[in-house]
């Protein structure tokens, strides 16, 4: 069964490779500075290295699919995302795999009655517009700068050729590495908790964890996608939109990397804030949209006459179509899997306003008078609970969030056996001690576990203005929930 479920993850990896390799090597191959074969070899090697080495840092997280709470559901969500990316690859259209996944998850949300985080929807729409514009702007500035330098330094045509080639290769290699590192969690993360692999040690020097073995397989799937099917999309990026000269190709791929770095790096944001510098607003970015924006920017700089607007139009339609197709496919497939094949595609999450929940809501400072009507009632879906809430009280989105999380039933049973199952290498000594102190306790809500832990140790408390720390802590919490849940269907 594991192998069967894994297959859709591998399909997602394959289509990711077939589509996203164009972001990093498309301009190099399209401008004929690198042969497709050379690019594919470098890309594959570094995708796998990135997945195995850096992906491991994220191995405790489930990637975006983590919100899907049953493995059969995750199978369909991955399949739907992979399918829509594959269709876009057939249409030679560079699209964002993350957006496909978010689309597929929305399909699952609709099917399972979970709530869709409208934030992520707005994010996608903002990305469509902001990311290409930013990227085009940076490409134009960078191009002007580089041309100025080339003219000043009187570089020989052949030397410039060699340098451009190296620049393209370097950008491609780094890009491939981060492609592997950032996306492997989406491809394989969901399967980590159910992995049948055990750790292996190679000559006692390297130690490959089971997650890393899984990521290696995922990396290979991406690499196979790169080799077998990525040329079509590479050609769209590299020569479909405009005929790119090598220097322009170089500028396009580097400005795409700069956009990704500047507008998505929380590390950079934290660094700027720490040093009292004005921080850059973090805009959601997609590497496919960044590279297309950069290429169009190059075209506009040359007067825009060389741009094939038909291709650009096609790509834009593809961007809009991807999440929609993914959502539809996901919804329809879930329906079949649930009703025809009798598979459990989601774990129902119930909502009850318990005494504890009421207490918590009150302590935060929200009036609970009108909630009394709903007290003790059992709602089987998030959507149902939300509807009932809005019928009884008018709430701000934040207040509503608080009530929803407070009432979410997620029974946790902290037993010795379960604690021993968790790989605790990731936790600090103090955090481990706190976990052991809770042995034998039972919780009805997730937040109760959080609060109990926070009470014992400050290391389980969220910190203000420390995004990285909080994100890491949240990941740790999500990780332990999976072990303490009553029925570990996951």
């Amino acid at each position, binding site marked *: 069964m594991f192998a069967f479920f894994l297959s859709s993850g591998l399909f997602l990896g394959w289509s990711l490779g077939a589509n996203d390799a164009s972001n990093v090597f498309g301009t190099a191959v399209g*401008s004929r500075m690198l*042969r497709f074969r050379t690019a594919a070899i470098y890309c594959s090697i570094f995708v796998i290295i990135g997945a195995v080495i850096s992906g491991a840092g994220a191995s405790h997280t489930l990637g975006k699919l983590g919100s899907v709470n049953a493995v059969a559901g995750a199978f369909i969500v991955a399949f739907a995302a992979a399918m829509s990316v594959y269709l876009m690859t057939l249409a030679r259209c560079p699209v964002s795999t993350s957006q496909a996944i978010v689309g597929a998850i929305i399909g699952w949300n609709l099917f399972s009655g979970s709530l869709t985080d409208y934030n992520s929807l707005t994010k996608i729409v903002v990305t469509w517009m902001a990311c290409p514009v930013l990227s085009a702007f940076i490409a134009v500035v960078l191009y002007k700068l580089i041309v100025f330098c080339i003219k000043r330094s*009187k570089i*020989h*045509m052949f*030397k410039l050729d060699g340098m451009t080639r190296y620049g393209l290769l370097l950008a491609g290699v780094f890009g491939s590495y981060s492609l592997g590192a950032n996306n492997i969690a989406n491809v394989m993360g969901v399967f980590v908790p159910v992995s049948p692999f055990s750790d292996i040690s190679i000559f006692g020097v390297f130690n490959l964890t089971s997650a890393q073995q899984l990521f290696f397989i995922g990396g290979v799937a991406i690499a196979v996608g790169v080799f077998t099917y990525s040329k079509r999309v590479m050609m769209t990026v590299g020569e479909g939109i405009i005929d790119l000269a090598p220097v322009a190709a170089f500028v396009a791929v580097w400005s795409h990397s700069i956009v990704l770095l500047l507008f998505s790096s929380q590390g950079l944001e934290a660094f700027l804030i720490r040093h009292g510098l004005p921080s850059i607003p973090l805009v959601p970015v997609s590497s496919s949209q960044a590279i297309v924006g950069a290429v169009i920017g190059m075209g506009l700089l040359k007067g825009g006459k060389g741009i094939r607007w038909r291709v650009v139009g096609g790509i834009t339609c593809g961007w809009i179509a991807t999440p929609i197709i993914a959502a539809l496919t996901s919804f329809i497939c879930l329906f079949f899997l649930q009703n025809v094949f009798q598979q459990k595609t989601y774990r129902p999450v119930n909502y009850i306003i318990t005494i504890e929940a009421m207490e918590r809501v009150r302590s935060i400072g929200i009036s609970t008078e009108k909630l009394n009507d709903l007290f003790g009632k059992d709602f089987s879906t998030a959507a149902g609970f939300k509807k009932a809430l809005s019928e009884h009280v008018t709430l701000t989105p934040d207040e509503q969030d608080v009530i929803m999380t407070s009432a979410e039933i997620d029974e946790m049973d902290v037993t010795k056996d379960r604690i021993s199952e968790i790989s605790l290498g990731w936790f600090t000594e103090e955090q481990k001690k706190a976990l052991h102190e809770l042995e034998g306790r039972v919780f009805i809500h997730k937040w109760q576990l959080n609060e109990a832990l926070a009470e014992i140790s400050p290391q389980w408390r969220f910190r203000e203005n420390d995004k990285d720390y909080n994100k890491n802590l949240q990941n740790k919490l999500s990780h332990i929930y999976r072990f303490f849940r009553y029925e570990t269907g996951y």
Partner: protein
Amino acid sequence: MGISILKRKVGVEKQMDDFLDQVSESGLLFKQGAEAYLKGNNEAFEKKLEQIADTEHKGDALRRSLEEQLYTKTLIPESRGDVLELLENMDSLLDRFKGALWQFDIERPEINPEYHEDFKELINYVVEAVEAIVRSCRAFFKEIDTVADHMHKVIYWETESDKISTRVQRAIFRNEELALCHRTQLRDFVRNIDNIADRAEDVADRLSIYVIKRSL
């Protein structure tokens, strides 16, 4: 792999420079050889003849090696065709200088002393035109913005050599003392030399297109 690519690039650059050196050298050898012929200095003439044949060989070898490298190593993919054409055109200039000097050896034309100065002047201008196109080529590879300055001179020297060529031909045909066959022979020589400047101008015209294509 890394270092070898850079080394190869340096190799290609150097070969390109060497090749252009050969073209420029062939012009100078032609000038010296023709002057020696006019002076009647047979020994010096024979020597230049040998040297120019040697230069042409070297030029051919360099051109072939460059062309092969351009394609097998997939260098400068966007300008490869243009550079190839440029190489062939420059090589044809070299061939013409060699051919013109050998023509002196084959036909041994009798050039009246009254035309010597005009011949020298014509040769001078033609060589200047070729020198200017060689400089344009070097600029094309290193400093593309300055190509136009050099190309302008090609056109100037070509016009000047046209003027002289017309003047000399007219003088030859007005000279009643010369037999018609002698006149036509001299005319062919003048035309042959003048054609080299015309050819240089053609190369310059092509080059200006390559520059537009490559402009950043």
